[in-house]
């Protein structure tokens, strides 16, 4: 039983983290909070990938001249790329939040949809009058 848990506990805890991130994205209306949730999700995916690359009693994949067991370096390379791409998307998302705040005066989803509805109605009134 303990062996079965030890074989997979890392995956389960990382999936738990991932689901918290997803829940923040789905349930919270504040746009900055949504981006934070996305970041948590992202970091959990990184951890999942690195978990797959781990080898028991392995060390960091740096050659020292002695025969050693190395962990798999390929997920490390992929995740290095993913971290940098992640910060690029975060920056773009935050820039969008700043623009939304300038145009709508709010970063809450509900306020934005109310504001859009109001705008649409006032346009309809303008045409009919």
């Amino acid at each position, binding site marked *: 039983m*303990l062996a079965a848990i*030890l*074989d*997979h506990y*890392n*995956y389960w*805890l990382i999936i*738990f*983290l991932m*689901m*918290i*991130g*997803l*829940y*923040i994205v*789905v349930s919270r209306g*504040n746009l*900055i909070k949504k981006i*934070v949730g996305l*970041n*948590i999700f992202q*970091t959990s995916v*990184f*951890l999942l990938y*690195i*978990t*797959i*690359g*781990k080898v*028991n009693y392995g060390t*960091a*994949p*740096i*050659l020292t001249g002695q025969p050693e067991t*190395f*962990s*798999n*370096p*390929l997920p*490390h*390379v*992929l*995740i*290095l790329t993913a*971290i*940098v*791409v*992640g*910060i*690029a998307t*975060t*920056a773009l998302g935050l820039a969008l939040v*700043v623009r939304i705040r*300038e145009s*709508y005066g709010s970063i*809450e989803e509900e306020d934005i949809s109310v*504001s859009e509805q*109001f*705008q649409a109605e*006032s346009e309809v009134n303008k045409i009919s009058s």
Partner: protein
Amino acid sequence: MLDMVTVVDVVLLALLSTTAVAILIMRHLFAVVALTGAFSLLSAGLLVTLDAVDVAFTEAAVGAGISTVLMLGTLALTRRRESRPPRLSPIGLLIITITGGALIYATPDMPKFGDPNAPSHQHIIPSYIKGSQDDIGIPNIVTSILASYRSFDTLGEVAVIFTAGMGVIILLGRRREDEHGYSEDGAAYPLKDKNKPKINDETST
């Protein structure tokens, strides 16, 4: 069976879970951003126990550093508090139950944690580990793969960063503009529609 690495691993994952739940509950966005930085730093610690030292280094610099700075900058331009109190979202709970259930259902098919015979360690990796010293001449295998064996990935990454940077400049660069051209003080872009409802920012909380 329970060695020290496992204990450190579990403790770090527990701390990460606590931080994530705190982020979920907190309404003060400044605290949320600070906790996001702590989350990244903890995950960097976990990456070190999983032998990914290069990734840990990048995560600590980019995730805990640059990303926190960007978020604090955004907070300075927007607002500090979430206006709606946190509430239970049935759709969100349904989504995470289904997604999480499916993922956990799939984990028994995954190779065991740390299994040296897992399929992902069998293909191409042994030749990278054996050949990188002669092929590239750098002791760090991650650097060899990143900059040489898989350098086109890194080239694509540069294209992505360039695109994102252009996007940010296009989105925020307009703020200096007004109807007559460029305003010198860099004032906010004037709102065209004066009829839109005023939403009170700081008082609505």
